[in-house]
């Protein structure tokens, strides 16, 4: 079993379970409970799935975190090489396509003049969900691609709220979606839950098969730690919000963070949801060569017992 565990996370409220687990030392506790020496956990920050992948593959990282769609792609691309595999989901939460253009009610209302900001290119979470939606609405998954523009969440939020920008729509995640909606200047066009037909995982933790096989107890301790964190968050949303604000040095209002945690479209769980649907879609549009037979193939065996999809 490894003596140290290097976990990289990105920025945002989606990583709340990791933050709680880290602040409360839950992983170390679970490791002790399993009878192994608690690994020294090192928390790193990296931006973007690509950097995560490279760090993971180069051996500079044990656990990477990213959106589920890039993780599926990475899983497919590394089938014969690094063989990456999911360790746990970080929670299900809806992403929302917002717009400040009052004329836009549905996807069909977008015109040549509109621009949709997405935080990442092509295989990122939001671009794929947008393609799935377009596929559903028009039968042509890349119909809206020409309107998309890549831009980080905060900048796109500033643009869309400023009102004098070409950016009229933004596919975004909590807390930006809530912030934008709360401003009253934008409205919702699309909810990713509607596209997927139900709740779906947003971010996942993944690692290499080799690491997972070599350190089964550490993995188990990690997932149990996350499970405990999730339970605690559900039980204590107010404290969770306070803990998040303190740990991240965030300037968001505690009430606002709490409201996000309580949101019905936000559910912190390690069980993957909708993974199969994402994988099937990626296979359909040719992003991956072959969809997994079951969503369980994407994840570490211990997770297969959970009620995922």
């Amino acid at each position: 079993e490894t003596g140290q565990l290097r976990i990289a996370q990105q920025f945002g409220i989606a990583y709340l379970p990791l933050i709680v687990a880290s602040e409360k030392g839950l992983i170390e506790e679970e490791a002790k409970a399993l009878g192994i020496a608690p690994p020294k956990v090192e928390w790193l920050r990296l931006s973007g799935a690509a950097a995560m992948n490279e760090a993971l593959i180069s051996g500079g990282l044990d656990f990477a975190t990213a959106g589920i769609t890039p993780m599926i792609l990475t899983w497919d691309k590394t089938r014969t090489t690094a063989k990456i595999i999911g360790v746990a989901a970080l929670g299900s939460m809806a992403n929302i396509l917002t717009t400040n253009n009052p004329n836009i009610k549905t996807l069909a209302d977008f015109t040549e003049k509109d621009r949709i900001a997405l935080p990442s290119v092509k295989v990122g979470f939001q671009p794929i969900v947008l393609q799935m939606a377009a596929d559903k609405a028009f039968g042509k998954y890349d119909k809206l691609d020409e309107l998309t523009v890549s831009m980080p969440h905060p900048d796109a939020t500033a643009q869309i709220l400023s009102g004098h920008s070409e950016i009229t729509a933004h596919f975004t995640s909590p807390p930006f979606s809530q912030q934008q909606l709360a401003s009253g200047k934008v409205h919702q066009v699309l909810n990713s839950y509607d596209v997927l037909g139900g709740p779906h995982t947003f971010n996942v933790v993944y690692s290499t098969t080799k690491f997972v096989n070599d350190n089964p107890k550490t993995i188990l301790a990690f997932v149990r730690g996350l499970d405990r964190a999730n339970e605690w968050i559900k039980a204590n949303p107010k404290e969770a919000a306070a803990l998040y604000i303190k740990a991240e040095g965030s300037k968001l209002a505690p009430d606002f963070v709490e409201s996000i945690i309580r949101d019905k479209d936000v559910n912190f769980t390690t069980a993957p949801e909708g993974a199969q649907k994402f994988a099937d879609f990626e296979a359909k549009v040719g992003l991956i060569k072959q969809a997994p037979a079951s969503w369980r193939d994407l994840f570490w065996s211990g997770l297969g017992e959970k009620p995922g999809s």
Partner: protein
Amino acid sequence: MSDVAAPKLVRAPALRRALEGTPWRRFIILAGFALAWELYARWLDNALLLPTLGATLSALWSAVLSGELPNRALTSLRVLITGYALGVAVAAVLTTLAALSRWGNEALGLLTSMFNPLPAIALLPIALLWFGVGTPSLIFVIVHSVLWPVALACYGGFLAVPPTLRMAGRNLGLSGGRFVAEILVPAAFPQILSGLRIGWAFAWRTLIAAELVFGVSARSGGIGWFIYTSRAQLETASVFAGLLTVIVVGLVVEGLIFRTLTRITVQRWGQVQT
């Protein structure tokens, strides 16, 4: 009058001229570099991180055949050249002002030390505000990345122009822009050239790094877009194919433009040795 007799000239031997003309040293170094890459990549055997040169070349080949890479490279080059030209032009204006007045001088020093360290993302809100999404903002940040180093190098060069040469120019009644353009610029040309080289490289870097942040739409993305999408899809060979394209463009520009420029200017004028 006692003429200095006409110089006695003979042609240099053909072999020597041929040897001096061809950059055979460069080819050897390039070949060595290519070999080192190939061997290291093979030894590493991790195509996801570092593909072999062979794999990269075949990815390059297929991306060229499909027409995607040439298209993207052209898109990038268009933006790049526009931004570069603009940046150099603004640098020329700023350094001219700086060379002509104490105020301009102080302003240039101040602006450079203030803005030069700022990364492109610092300008994002302003750029988007003023120029909107897409190419114009991209050009704006390229100008930012070219302007300061070029201005610094030019101005440093101006300051180092020998006093006798300055006086010789002033003696002809030259002043203002004409003095700068016809005396200071050619006299400082070695430094200006190295500034232009640095600026060129930074224009590339900025373009590639900014294409993602500055809102490129999928259809109009350049080589930065190509690299990023390839990277997101873990097509490492394609990523390196994109980078190789950047390197090749860099070598071509260096070999064709900067070398020639050096040869027909400062080398011919005896301002630099080699």
